[in-house]
């Protein structure tokens, strides 16, 4: 791992990027948001399962690690989502159709992004972790709070960044949400 040199400017730029992204998503400006993604983006939500404690790991951090709970892309399990640009585009196009009934009327969302941390830097490629809360409200329903971590790979491009990889670690115990088919 390349220890990143996190200048205040870099930190500021990345945070501004995420604020802009959150504003676009909350404002339902999905087409503009798409421009923030690389064409080969991988967008992943691992499934989070309850596992057995391995006796050999007793007393170690591995025993309680978050990683043990995740059934992601490389696991034998089934991630909740693993998508490229085509499926993301399908979801975006859907938002503009009158017959997308679960979003008609559209949900009111508000995303808060924080704990933005530059984990790794390799030339123009950055690994960034951040946390988010998203309030999700629809007519005739209670409100839902989504909480999670985003593990992103950003790519520096002319005048900004693009998201090349996003893995979302959702903090659910039981999935008591109307859908996980949203943009986090």
């Amino acid at each position, binding site marked *: 791992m390349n220890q990143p040199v996190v200048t205040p400017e870099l930190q500021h730029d990345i945070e501004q990027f995420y604020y802009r992204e959150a504003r676009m998503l909350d404002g339902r400006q999905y087409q503009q948001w798409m421009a923030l993604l690389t064409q080969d983006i991988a967008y992943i939500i691992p*499934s989070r399962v309850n596992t057995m404690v391995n006796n050999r790991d007793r007393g170690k951090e591995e025993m309680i690690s978050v990683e043990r709970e995740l059934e992601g892309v490389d696991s034998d399990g*089934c991630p909740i989502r693993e998508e490229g640009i085509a499926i993301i585009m399908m979801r975006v196009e859907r938002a503009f159709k009158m017959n997308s009934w679960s979003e008609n009327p559209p949900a009111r969302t508000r995303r808060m992004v924080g704990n933005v941390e530059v984990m790794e830097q390799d030339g123009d490629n950055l690994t960034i972790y951040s946390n988010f809360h998203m309030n999700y409200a629809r007519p005739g329903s209670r409100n839902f709070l989504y909480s999670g971590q985003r593990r992103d790979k950003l790519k520096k491009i002319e005048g900004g960044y693009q998201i090349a990889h996003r893995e979302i670690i959702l903090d659910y115990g*039981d999935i008591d949400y109307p859908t996980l088919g949203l943009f986090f």
Partner: protein
Amino acid sequence: MTIKVKDLVNEDATLIGRKAWSDEHIYELEKKGIFGKSWLFLGHESQIKNPGDFVQAYMCETPIILARGSDDKVYANINSCSHRGVPVCRADHGNAKRFVCPYHNWSFTVEGELATIPQERELQCKPDKSQLGLKPVPRLESWKGFYFGSFDENIESLDDYLGDMKFYLGAFIDRFEGGIEFVGAPHRWVIDANWKLPMENQLGDVNHGPFLHASIVTPEANQEIIDHGLSAVTTPGHGATFRMMPEDTHPGLVAWGMESPNVMMAPPEVHQYLFDTHEKAVERVGPVRANMKGLTYGVYPNLSFLWSNASFKVSHPRGPGKVEYWSWSVVPADAPENVKKTLRNNYATFFGPGGVLEQEDSEVWMQQFHGSNFDFADDRKYFYGLGLGEEKSHPDLPGMVDVTANEHYARGFFERWRDALQAVEEE
């Protein structure tokens, strides 16, 4: 006032009262008359290959551990300590030597026998441990690796219970030389809906596809259902929908898995695997079933199978207005890794908690519960009469068969539901 079952379902089940979906007393009757007396799906052998392997399951609201014992036999026990009732297993799946209750450390073998009581060392009188194991599910049987349990000691064999559904289920399962496997822990999520609507949806309701799912499902896909779609009811309560493709159909249009958008974007070796599998289909499942392109299946009371996106689902009730929906991706066991990964994703993109089609389904299921739960409309029952009496027998296919617009699958379910509830109503 207690609602009578006869006031909810009329003679030919063309009218269903709203409170069938929302009444507490009716839900109690369902637990007794349906979940206490049916075969309920617990798990698949691919999930418990080795001694000590286990998965969690539910029979209605009752938690079950399905495990492979050290003798290689499969056991199903209620996940509740015989001392104070606390669950002895908390993981979704895994491999265990013992299940240990967190409260007083009573420990149980994978087979469900009580192994140790730590407190007995200090006591004169030793309890008879042979009487204090986990409660076994009274009946446990399997068909082609699918394990089912029943609380009813006297229930017919699983084989008889499944009846001609085996013909339709086999059309999928037997296609693959190495059988199928369930992928990982189930996705399970809570929906504010009644358990019967997800079930009815999968029993045969492809009628909602072109409308509710119009934002995604293409007109071509809908036309194919109009041209070739059939709905079969083998035994009332079970159902299957599928397209019977003409014999000369191009393999790209009939081979299982090929209708997935994810497969279209996949590398050519994925297509090749699916074509190769299809080529052997006639030999493996016969000429009729080889050209079957399945849609949705339901096995009474709450197991369903979505062929087009290869997933099994169970609708676990949590009261009249809540369901814990479980679903698994299912893949051919002998497929190469990249094929399995493409296919699991064809489920998760469209169904499951993040699925783009499931979004719409759970939305209307929640709304339907609202519609069934308010007052002053009980005299306006739901209309279930589409296609009444138009189903007939078929030269090649078991059961009563008709176009998919015929709602006989739902009438069959509610006739069986009514009779099951009436049988326990006066007890």
